[in-house]
């Protein structure tokens, strides 16, 4: 089937992903596979926030990574501004990678332990060849630190010296520094205490208003997703089982998993 050209900012068609769990010795051919995603379609437009919720292990992070070009899919395609990312030349791909940034679930794990925070935040500028002037990078880094509510002298520390919440804010600063169009937030605020969480969510909303950024907001916290997202996608065992506005999904859930999720939520 020919894939329709896509009008959305970013979209994925019938994405499937199988991980090789076991290989035959010597020949190296896959012996056992695990299907993490099965024919998932997804789209997002400028300035929009799409929430992805779903059971642990249902494939949310895998989907995010495929949409952001960090992983390839086994089947299906991802289009950024109507261009299939597989068909992009190097320059196009660099533009794509600049415009789609990530904030990960495990911020410490995604940071090099021997890099100073200053270099971690400034790194995307260098790898994406946006800026090489040290002074300029340095002032941008400090501006970002202020935006996420961190002190300037954190810049010279190492990730191991920060608390969980501080690390998460560094990750957010690193994503913001290249001024992306889309940020994929994978459990971006789940490690934060409520007051910092509120600060970050407010910040993300402000930035969205200012720069018309789009967010793919992966979270298990339906209170947060409900607050952030215009549209919500519910995943279960590798497929999308329900989509709709926050009201539709959380007030009149139809899938058993969504029902259970809403019923068990601590928030009221």
């Amino acid at each position, binding site marked *: 089937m020919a894939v329709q050209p896509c009008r959305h900012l970013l979209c994925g068609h019938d994405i499937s992903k199988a991980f090789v769990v076991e290989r035959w010795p010597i020949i190296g051919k896959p012996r056992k596979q695990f299907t993490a995603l099965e024919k998932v379609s997804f789209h997002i437009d400028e300035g929009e926030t799409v929430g992805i919720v779903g059971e642990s292990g249902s494939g949310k992070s895998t989907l995010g990574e495929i949409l952001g070009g960090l992983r390839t899919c086994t089947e299906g395609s991802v289009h950024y501004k109507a261009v299939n990312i597989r068909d992009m030349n190097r320059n196009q791909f660099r533009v794509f990678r600049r415009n789609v940034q990530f904030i990960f679930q495990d911020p410490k794990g995604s940071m090099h332990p021997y890099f100073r925070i200053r270099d971690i935040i400034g790194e995307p500028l260098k790898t994406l060849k946006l800026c090489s002037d040290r002074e300029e990078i340095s002032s941008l880094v400090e501006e970002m630190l202020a935006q996420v509510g961190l002190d300037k002298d954190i810049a010279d520390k190492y990730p191991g010296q*920060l*608390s969980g*919440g501080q690390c998460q804010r560094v990750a957010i600063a690193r994503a913001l520094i290249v001024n992306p169009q889309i940020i994929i937030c994978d459990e971006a605020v789940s490690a934060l*205490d*409520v007051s910092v969480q509120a600060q970050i969510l407010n910040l993300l909303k402000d930035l969205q208003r200012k720069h018309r950024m789009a967010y793919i907001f992966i979270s298990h916290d339906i209170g947060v997703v409900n607050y952030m997202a215009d549209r919500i996608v519910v995943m279960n065992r590798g497929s999308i089982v329900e989509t709709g506005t926050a009201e539709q999904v959380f007030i009149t859930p139809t899938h058993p998993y969504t029902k259970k999720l809403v019923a068990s*939520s601590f928030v009221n």
Partner: protein
Amino acid sequence: MAEEKVLDIENLTIRTQRGRTLVDGISLHLYKGEVLGVVGESGSGKTLTAKTILNLLPENLSWEADRFAVLGADYLTLGKKDTKALVGQKIGYVPQNTGSYLHPMIRIKDQIIDGYLRYTKNNRGEALERARELVKAVGIRDTERLLKSYPWQLSGGMRQRVNIAMALMNQPRLIVADEPTTALDSTIQMQVLDLLKTVNDLYETPVILVSHDLGLVKYYCERIVVMYAGQIMEAATVEQVFSNPKHPYTRALIKVIPSLNIKKGERLAEIPGQLNAVGTAGGGCAFKERCSFRQEACEYTIREKTVADNHYYRCNLDF
């Protein structure tokens, strides 16, 4: 019941090599069968405190205390080797950073049973059986695939649950869980915490639950400690903290709990300002810059007070 003190920490201070204070004279007590919640601002020293109990403090930090007894063993006099054995054998730890706590090149099943085999006389088969049971109990369906996997083949929530299962392997006498459910949705979160609660009920295993989720702490804990900038601002029973909070920070914290009812366009309530560096209060209150009840006295002095029911707080005001 004669109350048995499991944790007796008096005046714990943690400093960097350069002498910067990170945790500033806190006291913690925990009794058998109790579930203690530790909440507080990000960067306030919750994890460092937990790590001291686990003898896992990073090498560039050092601690001192007037008293530091865990499960009857005095850390101030106990040798390095004995402390390590005590921790490995009797304390179950769920670290905040689950990803980096697991070894990437070792299969889950071998990691999970490692500590168990070291400290019990049971064989590999029994160990695996126990691992299987625990992994099921934390809500993992694909038990066999999980056990055969390497950590990087798992999702964040699965890794976190592996850590929880691992913490329970040795039938610990104390459980220290640092943000154990941040990667889990509410359905599994409840299942996991119910499991901890069951262990707590059955064996009277005391639990320290570090969490930023006040709703969860309210539900599972008997007593709460509220930390801010390396100090304990308030410590009381759950009822007291929620019905009669004495410290302005605690009040602010309760006010900012997000709820499903929040309107879309509305801004979330936040506590204005930033956590300032520990030890910069200069004898005064560490929270003063952000406090809406600030008085002149808060600049240079702070009053510690304990009212009825062991309700401790650190504030110049009475509410």
